[in-house]
């Protein structure tokens, strides 16, 4: 039997590390593959651009890789962490940290691949604006990494904060919920931000004069796409910092776990949806810059509606935490 606490803490720590890098490796690998695929497509069109395209591909892939590197860092920390306490609460916090970073790296990894690939393809089409394409790619993919950074922040806080003498039940569920909330919500925002950034690199390659307007629209669209992951982060912070009264009731724990699950899954769809809307808007600002005002307005209205389900999820989470 797993009777002593330190065994269970180790179990959670190793399990969390495995989940962290296992899940965390999915996104970056997919994103980098996408970038390399479009780089090859570009090379087949313009083999004489091979130097620039290859360089850009590697830079783009390096940014996408960073999501997986965050996950690797957290996994290694979890493996070699000398847990300061051996309380069972620490076990829940470590497992939550692994889940947060593991899920959180998926969206950013895939999302960062889109601008990388489109920039490589764009270089084959418009060799004259290589600098602009790389700049735009880097801005766009940096924003894509934000959700992964949120996840890493939550993971590090769960691992290293001193939670004092909080009661095991229901705080264990709050810590697991905190990891799930930010981790899952980051998937949508990472993907969504990537769609907007990819469309903007493609758009600039098609019509280089629109560089300024396209980048602005991309950033506005990406900012809205990040909202679900910010909601996720908010719910995680509430779950981590609110002191819950001790209770043996299972229902109190399940309410907190449910709050994390609601906000986490609930953030995925709106994040992707906001990205799809931003993708359409950015793409068409580049093709028809005269309609930029109307497009930005429509994008924001469309995103606001798409955001509503994330707000429902947040409301349900807050009710689960504060009301029931």
């Amino acid at each position, binding site marked *: 039997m797993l009777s002593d606490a330190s065994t269970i803490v180790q179990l959670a720590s190793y399990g969390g590390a495995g989940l962290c890098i296992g899940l965390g490796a999915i996104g970056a690998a997919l994103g980098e593959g996408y970038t390399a695929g479009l780089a090859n497509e570009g090379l087949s069109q313009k083999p004489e651009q091979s130097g620039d395209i290859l360089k850009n591909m590697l830079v783009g892939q390096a940014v996408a890789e960073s999501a997986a590197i965050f996950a690797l860092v957290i996994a290694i920390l979890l493996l070699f962490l000398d847990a300061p306490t051996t309380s069972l609460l620490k076990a829940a916090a470590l497992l939550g940290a692994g889940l947060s970073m593991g899920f959180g790296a998926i969206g950013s990894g895939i999302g960062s691949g889109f601008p990388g690939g489109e920039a490589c393809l764009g270089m084959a089409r418009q060799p004259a604006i290589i600098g602009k394409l790389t700049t735009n790619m880097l801005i766009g993919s940096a924003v894509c990494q934000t959700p992964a950074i949120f996840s890493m922040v939550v993971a590090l806080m769960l691992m290293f904060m001193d939670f004092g003498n909080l009661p095991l039940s229901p705080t264990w569920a709050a810590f697991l919920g905190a990891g799930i909330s930010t981790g*899952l919500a980051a998937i*949508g925002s990472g993907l969504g931000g990537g769609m907007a950034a990819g469309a903007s690199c493609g758009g600039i390659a098609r019509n280089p004069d629109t560089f300024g307007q396209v980048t602005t629209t991309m950033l506005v669209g990406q900012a809205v796409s990040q909202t*679900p992951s910010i909601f996720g982060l908010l719910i995680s912070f509430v779950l981590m910092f609110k002191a819950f009264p001790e209770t*043996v*009731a*299972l*229902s109190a*724990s*399940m*309410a907190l*776990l*449910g709050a*994390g*699950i*609601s906000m*986490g*899954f*609930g*953030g*995925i*769809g*709106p*994040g992707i*949806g*906001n*990205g*799809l*809307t931003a*993708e*359409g*808007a950015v*793409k*068409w*600002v580049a*093709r*028809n810059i*005269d*309609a930029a005002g*109307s*497009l930005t307005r*429509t*994008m924001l*209205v*469309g*995103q606001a*509606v*798409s*955001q*509503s*389900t*994330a707000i*429902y*999820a947040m*409301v*349900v*989470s807050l*009710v*689960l935490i504060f*009301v*029931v």
Partner: protein
Amino acid sequence: MAIEGVDLIKAAAFLGAGIAMGLGAIGPGVGEGFVGGKACEAIGRKPEEAGLLTRTMLVGQAVSESTGIYSLVVALLLLFVV
């Protein structure tokens, strides 16, 4: 630790509410975003029809929203009624 029947039912209802709203929000979020993207595409092609297109987008999104509202209703029922 003895878990009583009422507590177990409440626990399942709370977890169920989280799962219902969480998973239920995925579809409408993606669907409404897709509508928004296509509306932007259409406005880019025909800016003079922006009013009609925005209206159509909102109607389409409202229909797509319905399943999200079903999830919300089920979640609230699980929280406060069951």
